[in-house]
């Protein structure tokens, strides 16, 4: 293994890989932040407007849910292609890391919104009822009961979602987004530079491992603090 790593990561490899790592992290961080904000907002909306939710709005919930499902059923590739004109409008060009963030966000937000919703639904109804019984307002139930009570589950889902973001950024490499996926395709695949492919893959594995381990530690920390 160490032999392979030595062979693969030459100075030339680093020259290509390092900026690619930068691009991948740039796309991942930006998309993750947007995904976290909009995913939680939409997740809250889905949760609140359920049939037996805190603010039931059946039609809204049905329409909204259908839109989210539709977005989720589109392959990321298709979303990337579809949002190219939009990216051109906003960022000024239809390629590059910044341009693809719109597509990445549109791919990941619906997924994360559903994850957030399902984390919220895991909170025992009795806790929500207890909060209702003391006259808590809807936002208090949301932010003082549902969110904190579902935090460990939210963190775990968030970790999974970040890793999904990373894998979509790699896919976006196909469309000139830059990043490690781009390296794997342009150098590893098109130019038969196997060591570039291996290097890109190894770095991706390391990044994903880091995220997963970080998420696990965070979730465990919360659980342990609460003595659950």
């Amino acid at each position, binding site marked *: 293994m160490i032999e392979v790593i030595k062979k693969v990561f030459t100075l030339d490899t680093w020259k290509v890989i390092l900026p690619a790592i930068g691009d991948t992290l740039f796309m991942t961080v930006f998309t993750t932040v947007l995904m976290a904000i909009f995913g939680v907002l939409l997740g809250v909306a889905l949760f609140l407007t359920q049939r037996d939710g805190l603010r039931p709005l059946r039609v809204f919930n049905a329409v909204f849910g259908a839109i989210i499902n539709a977005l989720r059923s589109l392959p990321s590739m298709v979303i990337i292609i579809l949002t190219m004109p939009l990216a051109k409008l906003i960022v000024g060009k239809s390629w590059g890391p910044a341009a693809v963030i719109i597509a990445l966000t549109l791919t990941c937000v619906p997924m994360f919104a559903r994850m957030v919703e399902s984390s919220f639904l895991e909170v025992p109804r009795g806790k929500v009822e207890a909060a209702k019984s003391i*006259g808590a307002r809807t936002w208090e139930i949301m932010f003082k009961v549902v969110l904190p009570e579902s935090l460990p589950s939210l963190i775990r889902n968030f970790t999974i979602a970040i890793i999904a973001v990373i894998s979509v950024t790699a896919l976006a490499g196909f469309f000139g987004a830059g990043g490690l996926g781009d390296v794997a395709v342009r150098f590893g695949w098109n130019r038969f530079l196997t060591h570039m492919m291996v290097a890109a893959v190894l770095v991706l594995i390391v990044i994903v491992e880091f995220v997963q381990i970080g998420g696990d530690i965070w979730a465990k920390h919360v659980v342990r603090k*609460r003595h659950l």
Partner: protein
Amino acid sequence: MSNNAFIRIEHLYKTFSTQKEQIEVLKDINLEIEKGDIFGIVGFSGAGKSTLLRCINRLEEPDSGSVFVGEQEITALAHDELLAFRRKLGMIFQQFNLLDSRTVRGNVSFPLEVARLNRADIARRVDEILELVDLSDRISFFPGQLSGGQKQRVGIARALANDPVVLLSDEATSALDPQIALSVLDLLRSINEKLGLTIIVVTHQLEVVKYACRHIAVLEAGSIVEQGSVAQVLTNPTSDTMQVFVKVNSNLTAGALTEGSGI
């Protein structure tokens, strides 16, 4: 209807609809509860006791009929008024329903935050109420570190924090060991005496009725089939439910005595 009743329930109906059928959970419930009473609502599972209790703070919306607490008609309150009313009402649950994300202090603070007290008042009130339920030494523990009995005492502290006029107890002792349940009932009784708080207790345990309640109403399939003082109802039970309850209970007592005397 007498005028000194503190809680009045009149012609209350509630139906649950499933896809297949409509189930009448409460049928024409009429009830009066005096101020300072410990009132038991008794029945088998599915009789509608919890639903009746939850109609009092409208966790369950009745289909028709009215609930009065003091001068207020609860069933006529708009949403914001209902929230304000609920802040003057405590409720405890079989599963405690504490927040795992908050310490004992945080759990008891919650209703006070909701009632918009300032920090100093909240801190003072939390100390005071934890003293009352004898949990001062557990103030910075999380619910995950407490026993069932302690959790329920936190539940009671949370319910009492904002000085309620009524305490609703939904099978609050059913998940506890007998002697722990007894200590929780002791606590409820002493709160009732000290604060003159009206307590409504839903239970399927006759021991709870005998030990804590002064008056009871017996529910059977959504209707009140019997009500009165505990002494009256227990000495002369007329409903099927109460006859079964009393019979099972006396068998148990006889059995326990036989066993205890070594025969």
